[in-house]
């Protein structure tokens, strides 16, 4: 994967298309041109991709969020203090 091409294509991806995945984990194609799938549950997303025939190296896992943050810690959605464990 050439990261500069991946990012250039992701940066060109229409915002009004991406907003459909707001609050979801998504898998980007390696060229950054397509969202292969999205799901609020990252493990279910990975399972969906595997079932569709994708290998782990075929995509980049990401998260769609249009909020602003101070610092890099950004939590998925309206985090209420509960953990996944």
């Amino acid at each position: 994967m050439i990261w500069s091409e991946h990012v250039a294509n992701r940066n060109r991806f229409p915002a009004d298309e991406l907003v459909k995945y707001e609050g979801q984990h998504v898998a980007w194609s390696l060229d950054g041109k397509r969202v292969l799938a999205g799901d609020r549950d990252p493990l279910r997303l990975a399972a969906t991709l595997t079932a569709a025939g994708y290998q782990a190296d075929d995509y980049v896992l990401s998260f769609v969020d249009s909020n602003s943050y101070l610092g890099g810690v950004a939590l998925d959605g309206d985090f209420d203090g509960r953990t996944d464990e």
Partner: protein
Amino acid sequence: VKFPYLIDHAKVPQPALGGGVERPRPVIAVRLAGPTGSRILDGHLDTAADDTIFPLWVSTLISLDLSVAADQDIHLAGRGQPYRARFLPVELHLSDGRESCWWRAIVGFVSVPLRRALLGQAGCLQFFDSDFRGADREVILTPNCSFTGQKI
């Protein structure tokens, strides 16, 4: 290794951006390798993060054995209560498509729903001299003298 910034978009015009909506961020792809494979995911280069932290679900995808993890409480900025992080050695890999670096590091996994991995000082930035080029919206990572991995 040079990475252009990823540009996220705010839903509404941002006062700090003069009404703009583009949020350029030093987000890069990082490959995290474990016993049964690897995953590529977004990682946010964060000079304010003491450690390199991944969401716990990633450890499941690469079959890390958390029973041997070193547990430690960490604090997330803006959150009052500490959260338990589970630290394990992994292999990390960065590539811009022309140059690649990989190295072993001890990174943490937390069960809070992080939206992106945090590539912080310990485990990541400690091994690089980082040049955040705001005008060009890119970051250049140069392995430094503490880098013990491999660069191609």
